C-alpha cells in the first residue's frame, strides 16, 4: 500500500475543501522556526512517520514561540521511532478543541463497495470506543457508481447521534471526504480526530491516506516512490527493483529485503519464489531447514525471461548469501523455460559460485530443467533443477547439502560489467533492452540456430546474417518477447555473437558501493 504522510494527506483535504490547521512540513529546525513565525500563534510539531500513537512516543510537542519550535524540532528530527528515523515534521497551528469525531473509509470485500465509518466520539483509542459504544458508530456502504449523496451523509451523522447545525457541517465534510478519497484512489482513508473547535469550526486535525498500489500510475502528482506496503522506508535495492516492476507490465515482480546486513557466517540464502501461495510454502521449507532469508522475491504471472533475469541480478546483489533457492507452487501454468533462461543468463554472467536449487515444476518443466542442466555446467557453482514431483522440503534439503559441500562460502557481489560490443554490431531495441548481433561472426555459424529458436519468428536471414523480419518499432513494442533463446543458443552452441542488454537503472552504482565497502 502506498501510504501518504499526514502533511501530504492534509494537502489533499485542503484541495478538496476540507479545513485543516495552517502549517507546513519542515526538514530542519530552521524551517520549523520559519513556519511557526509565519503562523504567528502557538504551534504543535508532529513527527511524520507511519506509526500510530505518536504522542505516547514523544513524537508530538507544543511550542509557544518560533524559538521554542526550533528547539523542539531539533529534538524531534533524527529521533528513532520503530523502523523509522524522523526526517520531517509537520508544524501547524494549535487548535482549541471542543469535541472530537472519527471518519474513515475502507473497501469492504464482502459487499464489494467503499464503506464509510463515522463515530461521534473520536481521537485515541477509537477502536475500543467503538466496541464499548456501538451506538456512537454508524456505517454506510456507498454505491460506487452514484457516489455519496448529501442525504446519505446526513443520515450517517444522524445515526451516530448528532443533529442540527453540527450535522450539516459534518455531512458536508463527509461528501467532500469521499470525493477526495475516490478521486485519489484511496485504498483506505481516515480523519482522526475530526474536530469541532471552540469557535465552532470543523477541522481535520489528523489524517492519513493509503493509495491503491495499482492506481498509483494515475497520480504522478503524489510523488509515490515505491507503491508497496512497508513498515519502514524502502531500501535502496528495493527502489531499484521497483523501477523494474513499474516499467514492465508483463507478469509480476516483487522484491522485498528482509535483511540488509548479512555476515559471512550466517546461514542466509537468496529466495526467488513464484506466486504467493507457492512461495509461502517454499519459504516454510527453507526456514524449517534453519536458513534465514535475505529477501523475498516473486516473479510470476508468466513474466518474460528478461524480468526473471533482472530479478536474479538483484537477488545476487546481496553479499554473503550462501545459496540461491527458487521455488514456487510446483505446478505452474506459466512457461517455465522463460524463468530457466532468465536464470541461466544471470548465473552465467555472474560466474555464480554459490549453489542454487531451482524448482521449476509446471508447464514445460522438462525443458526448463534441461536448459538449466545444459548451460550451467561451466560455472563454479552447482545448480540443480527440479520439477513438480520434487517437494519443497526435498529441495531445501538438497540446498542444505550443496551449501555444506561448498563450505558455506559466502557470495561475493561483483561489479556490473557490460561486454564491449563491436562498433559495427547490428542491433535493434526491445521493449526493455537492446539486442545486438555481431554479424562479423555469423559467417562461421553453421546452424543458424537463432532463427529456429526465436519463438516469435521475428528474424530472417539476409545472406548469412540474421536481421529483423519486422519493422524495428514492432520489435520495440514487444514483438521481441525478450525470451533470450537466441542469445543462449548462440553463446553456448555457436559464435557467441548475440547479446541482449537489459539495463537495471541504479544497480551498477549500487554494486560499486557494495564492492567498495566489502
Amino acid at each position, binding site marked *: *500500500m502506498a501510504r501518504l504522510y499526514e502533511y501530504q494527506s492534509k494537502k489533499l483535504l485542503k484541495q478538496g475543501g476540507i479545513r485543516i490547521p495552517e502549517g507546513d512540513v519542515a526538514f530542519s529546525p530552521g524551517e520549523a522556526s520559519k513556519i511557526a513565525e509565519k503562523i504567528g500563534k502557538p504551534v504543535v510539531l508532529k513527527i511524520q512517520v507511519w506509526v500510530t500513537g505518536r504522542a505516547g512516543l514523544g513524537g508530538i510537542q507544543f511550542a509557544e514561540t518560533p524559538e521554542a519550535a526550533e528547539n523542539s524540532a531539533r529534538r524531534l528530527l533524527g529521533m528513532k521511532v520503530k523502523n523509522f528515523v524522523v526526517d520531517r515534521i509537520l508544524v501547524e497551528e494549535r487548535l482549541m478543541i471542543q469535541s472530537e469525531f472519527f471518519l*474513515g*473509509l*475502507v*473497501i*469492504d*470485500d*464482502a459487499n*464489494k*463497495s*467503499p*464503506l464509510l*465509518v463515522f*463515530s461521534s466520539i473520536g481521537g485515541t483509542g*477509537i*477502536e475500543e470506543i467503538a466496541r464499548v459504544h456501538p451506538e456512537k*458508530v454508524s*456505517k454506510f456502504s456507498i*454505491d*460506487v*457508481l452514484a457516489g455519496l449523496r448529501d442525504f446519505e451523509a446526513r443520515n450517517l451523522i444522524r445515526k451516530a447521534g448528532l443533529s442540527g447545525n453540527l450535522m450539516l457541517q459534518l455531512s458536508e465534510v463527509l461528501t467532500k471526504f469521499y470525493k477526495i478519497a475516490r478521486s485519489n*484512489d484511496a*485504498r*483506505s482513508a*481516515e480523519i*482522526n480526530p475530526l474536530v469541532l473547535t471552540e469557535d465552532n469550526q470543523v477541522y481535520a486535525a489528523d489524517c*492519513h491516506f*493509503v493509495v*491503491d*498500489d*495499482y*492506481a498509483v*500510475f494515475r497520480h504522478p502528482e503524489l510523488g509515490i516512490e515505491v507503491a508497496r*506496503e512497508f*513498515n519502514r522506508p524502502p531500501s535502496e535495492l528495493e527502489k531499484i527493483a521497483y523501477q523494474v516492476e513499474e516499467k514492465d*507490465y*508483463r507478469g*509480476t515482480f516483487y522484491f522485498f529485503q528482509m535483511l540488509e546486513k548479512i555476515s559471512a557466517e550466517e546461514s542466509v540464502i537468496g529466495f526467488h519464489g513464484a*506466486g*504467493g*501461495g*507457492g512461495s*509461502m*510454502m517454499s519459504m516454510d521449507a527453507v526456514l524449517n531447514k534453519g536458513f534465514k532469508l535475505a529477501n523475498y522475491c516473486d516473479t*510470476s*504471472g*508468466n513474466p518474460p525471461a528478461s524480468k526473471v533475469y533482472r530479478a536474479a541480478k538483484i537477488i545476487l546483489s546481496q553479499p554473503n548469501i550462501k545459496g540461491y533457492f527458487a521455488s*514456487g*507452487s*510446483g*505446478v*505452474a*501454468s506459466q512457461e517455465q523455460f522463460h524463468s530457466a533462461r532468465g536464470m541461466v543468463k544471470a548465473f552465467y554472467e555472474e560466474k555464480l559460485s554459490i549453489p542454487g536449487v531451482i524448482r521449476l515444476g*509446471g*508447464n*514445460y518443466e522438462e525443458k526448463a530443467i534441461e536448459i538449466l542442466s545444459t548451460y550451467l555446467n561451466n560455472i563454479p557453482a552447482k545448480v540443480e533443477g527440479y520439477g*513438480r514431483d520434487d*517437494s519443497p522440503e526435498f529441495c531445501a534439503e538438497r540446498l542444505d547439502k550443496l551449501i555444506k559441500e561448498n563450505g558455506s562460502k559466502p557470495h561475493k557481489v561483483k561489479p556490473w560489467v557490460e561486454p564491449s560490443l563491436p562498433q559495427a554490431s547490428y542491433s535493434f531495441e526491445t521493449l526493455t533492452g537492446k539486442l545486438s548481433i555481431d554479424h562479423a561472426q555469423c559467417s562461421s555459424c553453421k546452424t543458424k540456430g537463432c532463427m529456429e529458436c526465436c519463438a516469435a519468428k521475428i528474424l530472417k536471414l539476409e545472406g548469412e546474417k540474421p536481421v529483423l523480419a519486422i519493422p524495428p518499432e514492432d520489435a520495440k513494442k*514487444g514483438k521481441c*518477447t525478450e525470451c533470450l533463446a537466441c542469445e543462449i543458443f548462440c553463446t553456448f552452441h555457436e559464435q557467441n555473437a548475440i547479446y541482449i542488454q537489459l539495463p537495471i537503472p541504479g544497480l551498477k552504482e549500487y554494486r560499486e558501493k557494495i564492492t567498495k565497502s566489502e
Partner: protein
Amino acid sequence: MAILVDEKSKVIIQGITGREGMVRAQLMKDYGTNLMAGVTPGRGGQEVYGVPVFDSVEEVWEKLGPVDISVIFIPATMVKNAALEAIEAGVKLLVIVPDRVPIYDVLEVAAFANRKGARFVGPNTLGLVSPGKAVLGMIGGRAERAREWFRPGDIGVSSRSGGMTSSMSYYLTKTGLGQSTIIHVGGDAVVGLSHPEVMELFEKDEQTRMAVMFGEIGTTQEERVADLIEQGKFTKPLIAFIGGKAAKSGTRFSHAGAIVEGTRGSYETKVKRLKEVGVHVVDAISDIPKKAIELKKAREA
C-alpha cells in the same frame, strides 16, 4: 454438470491478439472449450489460431449470436472498459485474468455486473477448468498439461492462490481423485466470485460431492464460508488449508478496518471459525489428498 462452464458454453476472448491472448486461445481451443470468437478493436477480420477476430463484443453477438462467457486478456489499466463492454453486450460471466487492476475499477465492474445480473471471476486469476469439458483463462498453460494434471471427478476446488490451485488439483489427480470444477478466485482483496459464492455453486452442483478450499490471511472470505455452513447453506464435506500462518499478524490497514472487521482476517480467526463449523482444516498441502480419501471412504462405508 460442473459449475460455471462446460463444453457447451459459448466463449470469447477479449484481447485475443495480444501476447497472452494468443497463447491461451490455443490452450482453450485445444482443450475443447467452445471458443467461438475473439475481440480486439481494430483487428476485426483477422484470425488467431483459427478463431475469427471481431472489433467489439456487440459485433460478435450480432454476427454469431449470444455469448455466454468472455475471458479478458487486456492490460490492467484497460480492463474496466473491456469488462463494461462485455456486460453491456449481455455476457453473463467474465473471467478477468490480469493482475494489478485498480480496486475502484473492480468495484465499478462489480456494481455494474450486479445491476445487469452478470458475474465475474478475478481479477488476478488463472481462470477455471471443468476437467474433461472446458478451460477458461490460462490454467494448465497448455491443453496437454491440463489434461494430465486435472481429471473429471466429484471434488470441487476453490483457491485464492493461482499456483496452489493447480498444485492441489494435481496432487488429487495423482491420488486418483478427480475434480468437478477447479477455480482460482483471484488473488486480489476484492474479487468477483469469492469462496462463499463458489461454495454456494458447489452446493447446487450434483457432480460435486466434496470441496477443497485454499484460503489465505486477509479479507473475510473464509469466515463467510463458515457463516454459510452455519446457516445450512453449504452442507457438503469441506477440506481447507489456510496460507500465511508465518506472516506477521497485526498488520492492519486502519482503525476503520479494525472497527468493521474486528479480528476477522487473521490466520487464527479463520482456522477457529472453520473448525467450529466442522470444516476439515489441514496443516499441510500434502494432507489434502489423504483427508479426501478418508472422507470418501467414510461416505462409502
